[in-house]
């Protein structure tokens, strides 16, 4: 059963996306919505079944039944599904389903191909987390990137989305070409593209080309993960993209960049780079710390709700990089837990921000102060989400954080727990304060609700929020 099921989370959404792009204009808005939600829901069900099947034993699926007749040489292309990849694919399907359901009422028109692009995006991310072939990893990476660029610049009637999507596209494409260069060097060294086969050919010796290849590939994926020299695209892209798209960007796309570095390290470079591990750990941890600090400080300076969440994603990407930068199995487990819970929480927060944007048409903090009292349920969810991001009980972030911290201390990097304290505890005041400000407005808490217009009437040209939203 697994053999027929594993390629489906990639194949079915792609087929439905092609059908919707072709026939969507004659089928009517509601039918397209229903079909895309049904497809995403079916994908969610398939990813859950696959996760249950591979939970204890990873499974390798060979396309066209090209399984390696000679055990040393893999000529075919495979999906190599393990518990980590399967759980990330499940998160992808879950958030896409949530985003599509959310878009049911938010978008007025369908002429911009929103649903097909979302389905392609989901299929690419599922393939990215399943694949066991280095070049296919790049192909899925590019498919994911191109659909993400298009989704980001969806609102083509304003200049801001174009600007955000353009920056996003240029930075990520430079990263993608670094990955190709790395793949070329690795192929020159080993003559293979299958993860396991590359790992076996490399053995335990790493010359300079292998180290260079690893660095090129890692840097390319880190551009996707918004690690510090490449962080600036993320805030712009999140500020201009529609909220359901932000859910996928922050919830899984950034995590996938970090996951790819971990997957490549553990499947191919683990033996070869053993001699360089201390240096790599230092470099990656320093990058992680810089990312955390930049994201954390930018959080304080920001008044635009979606940009605030975007900078919080940058600092959390730094934390997740710290999780894989220790290069140990326990910290990797911590990274997975942290990534899954962060993805779900951040997705929920962006949907809350989307509700605020939809109801109030404004997203700058100055404008929103005290105007969200009618949205008490959204406000409660928002505070709950901020609580979860702070790594508090009973959220998975707490467990992931403690696993990474413990492992860091075991590797004599005792400053890493302070990084968690910095990112999770210190930026909470702006996040929580702003959410209380939006939704409650302490002074007027006991008075009967006034109509929205009577207080804090917004001044249209004061805040950047209005132009960007």
């Amino acid at each position: 059963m697994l053999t027929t099921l594993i390629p489906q989370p990639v194949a079915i959404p792609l087929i439905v996306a092609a059908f919707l792009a072709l026939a969507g204009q004659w089928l009517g808005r509601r039918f397209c919505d229903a079909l895309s939600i049904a497809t995403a829901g079916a994908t969610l069900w398939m990813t859950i079944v696959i996760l249950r099947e591979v939970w204890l034993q990873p499974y390798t699926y060979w396309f066209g039944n090209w399984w390696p007749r000679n055990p040393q040489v893999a000529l075919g292309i495979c999906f190599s599904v393990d518990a980590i990849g399967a759980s990330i694919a499940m998160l992808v399907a879950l958030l896409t389903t949530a985003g599509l359901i959310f878009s049911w009422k938010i978008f007025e028109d369908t002429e911009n191909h929103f649903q097909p692009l979302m389905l392609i995006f989901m299929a690419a991310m599922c393939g990215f987390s399943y694949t066991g072939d280095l070049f296919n990893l790049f192909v899925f990476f590019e498919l994911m990137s191109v659909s993400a660029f298009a989704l980001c610049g969806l609102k083509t009637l304003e200049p801001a989305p174009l600007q955000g999507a353009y920056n996003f596209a240029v930075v990520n494409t430079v990263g993608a070409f670094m990955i190709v260069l790395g793949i070329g060097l690795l192929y020159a060294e080993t003559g293979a593209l299958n993860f396991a086969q590359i790992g076996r050919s490399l053995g335990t010796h790493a010359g300079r080309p292998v180290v260079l290849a690893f660095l090129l590939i890692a840097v390319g994926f880190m551009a996707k993960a918004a690690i510090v020299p490449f962080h600036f695209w993320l805030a712009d892209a999140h500020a201009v993209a529609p909220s359901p798209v932000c859910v996928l960007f922050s919830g899984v796309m950034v995590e996938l960049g970090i996951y790819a570095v971990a997957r490549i390290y553990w499947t191919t470079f683990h033996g070869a780079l053993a001699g360089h591990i201390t240096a790599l750990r230092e470099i990656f941890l320093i990058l992680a710390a810089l990312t955390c600090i930049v994201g954390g400080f930018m959080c304080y300076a920001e008044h635009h709700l979606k940009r605030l969440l975007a900078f919080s994603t940058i600092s959390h990407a730094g934390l997740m990089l710290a999780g894989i930068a220790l290069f140990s199995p326990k910290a990797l487990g911590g990274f997975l837990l942290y990534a899954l819970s962060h993805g779900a929480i951040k997705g929920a927060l962006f949907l809350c921000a989307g509700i605020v944007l939809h109801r109030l048409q404004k997203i700058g903090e100055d404008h929103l102060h005290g105007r969200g009292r009618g949205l008490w349920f959204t406000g409660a969810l928002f505070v709950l989400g901020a609580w979860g991001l702070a790594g508090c009980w009973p959220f998975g972030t707490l467990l992931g954080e403690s696993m990474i911290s413990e492992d860091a201390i075991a590797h004599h990097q005792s400053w890493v727990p302070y990084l968690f304290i910095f990112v999770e505890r210190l930026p909470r005041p702006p996040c929580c304060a702003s959410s209380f400000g939006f939704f409650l407005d302490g002074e007027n808490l006991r008075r009967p609700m006034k109509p929205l217009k009577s207080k804090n009437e917004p001044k249209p040209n004061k805040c950047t929020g209005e132009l960007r939203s």
Partner: protein
Amino acid sequence: MILHVPYFIAAWIFLWGLYGIVTSKNLVHQVVCLAVLQTSTYVLLLTVGYKVGGTAPVFADIPVGTTVVDPLVQALMLTDIVVEATVAALLLAMVVKANELANTIDPEELRILTG
């Protein structure tokens, strides 16, 4: 040593492309710089697959046992070209739209306009 020259050329093209992207004052020019940067990957992939004295890997009309260059990297390069064409088309479409809306293709001016 002479066989290492293409690797240096690839690095050289990559760095010039990157320099162009960073310093460009024109969005169309920037997209072209991205394409220049990408040609470095072609050079590298072709170098990786090259064999001294090898011929084209078309097996219809050459005797068995002839040295050929590696066809796999050429397939990779073809995929790479398709990917780049998609990205360039999307980027240029965005530039056209930006020009329609803001009447400029200078990245700095566009940034000022969007606040």
